[in-house]
């Protein structure tokens, strides 16, 4: 549970967003254009013709692949006209393209929608979770919701940092429910509203789209992989941070297919934190930027079945954007919510200690400290020999990699294990031992008889696993609700979750045995503990 701090205490900087939007967009356009024109003068491969042609090629390919013949002609036509264009014409065309993508990306913040939602209940998520119920029912659901979603961690430090500078909230990413859940988490913790980039595919769900469009989310079209679009996106994020808009990135990129705690982080948008900080320093503004690691820990993940199938089918790369998963079906979302509300503490949002853009820890007041605990000036990381702020993209890229490593190292410690994770891990260890392999593909082909585990062995395994977790806080910790519970109770909790929620039953009980009916799902949930070494390896080391 979040502590008893009053909700809405944090300043909502997004209140000013709509007044700011024109200025911000103009700034993004100006910077992208200035950079492109400067680069074009330096080398032939960055000529405006190349840049525009790259856009035409990528857009044509995307539309052809999607069977959208109607819009392909626009890009073919531009590509043809490009050959005869003068430099000023190319510049004008590029400017139009930049403006087009800026408009495509930019978010909106409707204070009325925000007030309506937060006035109705202390949760945007609450409304999302009971959209078709009456207001009274909605309120009841929300009252339950606060019990279901717990928020804890370094909340006081994060609040202090929010007052002193701009936050970049970086949660792990398991589900499309993450955005509303983290929205609730921030609100419940008395932390400010954030703007964030959401996959454009999410905007196809009209219900979710309404809230996303009006509550500060900007659109990220992952199908557009050409440099100009990435440029616009990064610059937009940079400008938002420079202007003090608290932001949220999912550094894992898309939802984690395997449910392993995020470790291969995408650094693209994360890199804008260093750039924004540098730009501010150049202007003489010393507002800090803080990166906040957060884990979102679900007892059950709505899209688990699709995600793990996708992961195992090794089609993850091809199906980068899944549009036909559980999240696309409103009924499944509501079903998820209904089942989530049955279980107390179904989601735990844990905030870690913020870091500066270089991965340095901060004090309770938000001052950066080095690894020896000395207070340091983060601006010095961007200074040259004579104290001047210097531009060096390679250096800043390395800083961002260092930040990514620190984030990836922080996540395991912040991971909260539900009974479903613990139960799945114990079952997986047991069937792995019985079959002599941890390879999931082999286990999926094992006969049913070798996928049954005595309940007594599960209980014993649970006890041992819980003891190991207690002794290794760096691996994460079990949900506070489980502390003090007997292994039997944890087992029952895990069994209930794994056997009743998903369309396929993951486990079944028969007399004194537990049968693993769905190895994939057990694998998925146990993956949350993938960084916890198997007992034999740990003993060996």
């Amino acid at each position, binding site marked *: 549970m979040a502590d008893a701090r009053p909700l809405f205490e944090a300043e909502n900087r997004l209140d000013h967003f709509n007044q700011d939007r024109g200025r911000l967009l103009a700034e993004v356009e100006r910077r992208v254009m200035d950079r492109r024109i400067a680069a074009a003068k330096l080398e032939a491969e960055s000529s405006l013709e190349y840049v525009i042609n790259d856009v035409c090629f990528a857009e044509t390919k995307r539309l052809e692949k999607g069977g959208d013949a109607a819009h392909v002609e626009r890009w073919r036509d531009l590509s043809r006209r490009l050959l005869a264009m003068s430099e000023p014409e190319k510049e004008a065309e590029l400017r139009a393209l930049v403006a087009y993508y800026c408009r495509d990306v930019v978010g909106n913040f409707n204070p009325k929608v925000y007030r309506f939602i937060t006035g109705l209940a202390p949760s945007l998520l609450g409304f999302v979770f009971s959209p078709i119920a009456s207001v009274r029912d909605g309120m009841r659901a929300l009252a339950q919701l606060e019990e279901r979603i717990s928020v804890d961690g370094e909340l006081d430090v994060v609040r202090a940092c929010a007052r002193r500078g701009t936050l970049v909230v970086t949660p792990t990413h398991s589900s499309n429910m993450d955005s509303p859940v983290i929205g609730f988490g921030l609100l419940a913790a008395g932390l400010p509203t954030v703007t964030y980039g959401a996959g454009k595919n999410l905007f196809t769900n009209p219900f979710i789209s309404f809230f996303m469009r009006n509550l500060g989310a900007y659109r990220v079209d992952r199908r557009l992989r050409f440099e100009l679009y990435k440029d616009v996106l990064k610059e937009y994020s940079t400008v938002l941070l420079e202007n003090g808009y608290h932001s949220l990135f999912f550094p894992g990129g898309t939802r984690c297919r395997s449910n392993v705690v995020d470790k291969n982080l995408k650094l693209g948008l994360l890199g804008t934190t260093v750039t924004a900080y540098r730009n501010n320093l150049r202007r003489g503004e010393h507002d800090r930027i803080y990166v906040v690691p957060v884990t979102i820990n679900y007892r059950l993940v709505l899209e688990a079945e699709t995600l793990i199938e996708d992961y195992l089918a090794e089609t993850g790369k091809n199906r980068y954007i899944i549009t036909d998963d559980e999240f696309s079906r409103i009924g499944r979302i509501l079903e998820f919510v209904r089942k989530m509300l049955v279980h107390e503490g179904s989601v735990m949002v844990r905030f870690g200690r913020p870091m500066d853009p*270089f*991965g*340095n820890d901060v004090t309770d007041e938000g001052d950066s400290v*080095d*690894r*020896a605990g*000395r207070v*340091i*000036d*983060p*601006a*010095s*990381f*961007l*200074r*040259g*020999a*004579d*104290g001047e702020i210097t531009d*060096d993209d*390679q*250096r800043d890229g*390395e*800083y961002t*990699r*260092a930040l990514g490593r620190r984030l990836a190292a922080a996540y395991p410690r912040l991971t909260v294990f539900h009974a479903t994770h613990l139960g799945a891990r114990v079952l997986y260890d047991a069937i792995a031992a019985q079959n002599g392999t941890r390879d999931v593909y082999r286990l999926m082909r094992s006969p049913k008889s070798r996928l049954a585990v005595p309940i007594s062995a599960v209980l014993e395994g649970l006890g041992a696993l819980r003891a190991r977790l207690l002794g290794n806080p*760096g691996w994460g910790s079990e949900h506070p609700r489980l502390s003090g519970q007997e292994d039997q109770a944890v087992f029952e909790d895990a069994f209930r979750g794994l056997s009743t929620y998903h369309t396929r039953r993951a486990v079944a009980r028969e007399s004194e045995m537990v049968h693993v009916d769905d190895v994939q799902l057990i694998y998925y949930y146990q993956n949350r503990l993938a960084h916890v070494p198997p007992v034999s390896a740990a003993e060996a080391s």
Partner: protein
Amino acid sequence: MSRRADTVGVVGAGPFGTALASVVAGAGRRVVLWSRDAQVVEQIRRDRVCPRLPQVKLPAAVEVTTDPKVLAREAHLVVLAVASTDARARARELGAVLDGSHLVVHAVGALARGEGAQADVDATTDERVSEVVAQGVPTLRIGVLAGPALPTEMARGQFSSMVVASAFDDVIRETRRLINAPPVLRVYGSHDLIGVELASAMAGAYTIALGLGDGLGLGPGPRAVLITRAIAEARRLGEAAGGDLKTFSGLAGLGNLLVRGVPPSAPDEDPERVADERRRGQGAEYAIGLALARGTLVEDALTSEGARAALAVERLARRLKVRMPMLDMIAAVLNGRLQPKEAARAAADTVAAEE
């Protein structure tokens, strides 16, 4: 460029630090040399001679101080030229005076000894010096300077080469700009920080094997096999650890092994060189190998840089599942699990795989 941007800070007035300061200052750059030893500082100020490399007359462009604040204030680039056993303590001291803008390059050709006090560090696991430096100083812009550059040869003006490696371009660029002093010292650049540090440390471990081989009376043929197989397996480990294959046959790997694996000079051969070797502890690993072959007890053998590197790299190889028969044999001999002659026989028996 400003005066600070053109100044090199050198930590440690040992033979290498002194030789480097001399060569760099001789090439027209300003050097601030920090030593904790007040007597050494006094002698350099008075006589322009460092007692640890007395054959060198230090140019006036080398300023010497006992105050690390002076070093931090005057130099943007700092070279840590201390023994591996001192690296952690010096990095901590530097941490109090440096900030995030400094560029720090270490010239320690070994691993730093693990420290039990740190919660996340296994007390028996040695670390790469850049990792130790990173724990001590605030800056992230860290690199390594390595290669077969001997202080006496540098002092005599013989040509030598080193490589600077860092993830940061500006560390490589500035180190090369400020340390390059042709024809005496040429500095190459690399992004392979891990590879250069491992190659440099492993050279110490393999030097023990060369001493061992020579002590057992193996001829030039087997010696050549030892060297080439050492490089081959070092490359395998380096790649698995995230390094670049090329690094291990470069200055930090093969270069270091060739210079360290030379038998120490006979006392009447070249007094200056012999004295230098004694001061630098050069030949220590080779001498350990020789002594092991002769069955003599070697005092502190397991705590020498080469032996520690052998044991640490053996553990690393096991973790990364890399086959390293030569290193395993060195570790086994050091641990007393294998007699030197058995090790030589095992080396001869190693299966030759297709490569």
